[in-house]
């Protein structure tokens, strides 16, 4: 079943076409990898899908609903969460507070709840605490819960960012280079985490550079170069594609 469909998506910055009439689909429950050289437009693509950027042409359709041009907070509430290439966290706040904030969109208590201690406010606080504990366990971050997010080791920060994306019960997570700057052993841990995410029913789309990781992890690969999709398919197909080998230096371990 198709969860996300991207149709003729185009984005220009002045004279440069960062994303050029891109079409592809993401199936529910799968792990899709987006690869390509630097500057190929992958992060811009994520920005277009998540609403940080508005496309010049084309459509983004989530589960049948046209979400093109929606603001980021609306897209997030609709069920698409993301991480950023430069790890984005609420750095001075403890890890658990980061997760509380991530879950905030699923709660509705506001000013009156705060001032009057309404039953709903109390209930939602409990609910948030439960969910936060759940995700701390899921991402293996329980030991860091009270520390400021910015003080965590690099790979824990990456896991926390993923946790913040997950805590709000998204349908789809967009992970932008989740193993960037992370060592080999920790990369494997993050791969395991991504597998767990897929197993829990959340669809994953990853931008990555590390080919070995992708070929083992992804169900489908989409290859970009200069803003254009040059290949799409399962790992075997893609690795044998000529255009890919040319563009991406052909290092493919299928």
């Amino acid at each position, binding site marked *: 079943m198709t969860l996300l469909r991207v149709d003729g998506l185009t984005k220009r910055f002045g004279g440069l076409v960062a994303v050029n009439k891109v079409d592809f689909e993401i199936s529910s429950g799968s792990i899709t990898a987006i690869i390509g050289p630097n500057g190929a437009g992958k992060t811009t693509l994520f920005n277009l899908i998540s609403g940080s950027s508005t496309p010049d042409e084309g459509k983004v359709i989530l589960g049948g609903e046209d979400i093109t041009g929606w603001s980021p*907070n609306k897209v997030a*509430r609709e069920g698409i*969460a993301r991480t950023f290439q430069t790890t984005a966290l609420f750095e001075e706040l403890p890890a658990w507070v980061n997760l509380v904030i991530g879950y905030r969109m699923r709660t509705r208590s506001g000013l009156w709840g*705060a001032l009057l201690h309404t039953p709903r406010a109390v209930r939602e606080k409990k609910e948030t605490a439960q969910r936060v504990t759940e995700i701390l366990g899921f991402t293996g971050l329980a030991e860091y819960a009270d520390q400021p997010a910015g003080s965590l080791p690099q790979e824990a920060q990456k896991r926390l960012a993923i946790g913040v994306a997950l805590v709000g019960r998204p349908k789809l997570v967009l992970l932008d280079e989740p193993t960037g700057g992370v060592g080999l052993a920790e990369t494997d841990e993050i791969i395991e985490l991504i597998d767990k995410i897929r197993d829990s029913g959340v669809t994953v789309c990853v931008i990555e550079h590390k080919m070995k990781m992708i070929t083992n992890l992804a169900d489908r690969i989409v290859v970009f170069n200069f803003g254009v999709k040059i290949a799409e398919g399962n790992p075997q197909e893609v690795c044998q594609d000529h255009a890919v080998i040319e563009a991406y230096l052909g290092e493919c371990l299928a």
Partner: protein
Amino acid sequence: MKKFGNAGFYLLLVGIAIALPQLLNLTSSGKYQIHILTLGMIWAIAALSLNLILGYTGQASLAHGAFLGIGAYTFGILLARVGVNFWLAIPLACLFTAFLGMLVGLPSMRTRGPYFAIVTLCFNFIVFKVFENWKWLSGGIQGQTVPIPSYLGQRSVRYYLVLAFLILVILTERQIVKSLLGSSFIAIRSNERLAEAVGISTYRYKLLSFTVSCFLVGLAGALLAMENGQLDYTVTNYFYSFYILIYLLIGGVATLSGPVVGAVGIFFLLDRIKSIGEFRNLIFGLVLIVVIIYFPRGIVGGARQFWDWAKRQYAGRRGGVLE
């Protein structure tokens, strides 16, 4: 959030605050000090209101001087010209100020950081000019008298009223900060882009924070009108926006005790050195620069840092066993 999470400590403070006027009433100069402390507490409420929007949502408003004046005048006019009951006039003044704040916020909240500060400063300037030129509204040079009920004629009675409101405001802010709503605010201050990406409507929450903040500073304005009994257009001066900011920063932004310490403390000290008149601004300016460069967390923030540092030193000596 609280390091001295000790209810007993706060009750003691409140007790002292309650006892103070009784002691001061005994001396003739003491009576004047009551007035000064009352004013200090009013500025503390103003500083707390700015704290909500600056310390917790991360937006620096320079319009709070205007809203202070608007709250004061709304209250004064309701009492003097419309004949509204005192106890009704206060919430009405707060609501009206909040409403105006919301109107100002609607276009302004899309701007960020220094832009927002400039827009609010411009608004303050406009309000000041309007009050200066529109004699019917501001009462011109004579200003507007504020007739308060006779049972509030005594200084210490007004002191207790303001103290009660101050405690109420502190508790209100504490509730907000500790709630889920508060987490939205803090998220916006910490990383607005990320907050947006995790589903928080930053525009709406910034607007809400600003509106509540204006409600509170409107309260400060009304109480100011009450305490001084007399208003003129200078109460909307944009310099007050600076002062409120200064009290807040020096006391310690993003804390609950900081604004109180800063406002009451500085206001009190200033009154002592009243003789230097204009030069107070010079000292303000220097202190502000020094504080922002070397002690950006203000007195309370700095005290906490020191306390944490001292705890760590002490722990080291005892071989890591604390308490």
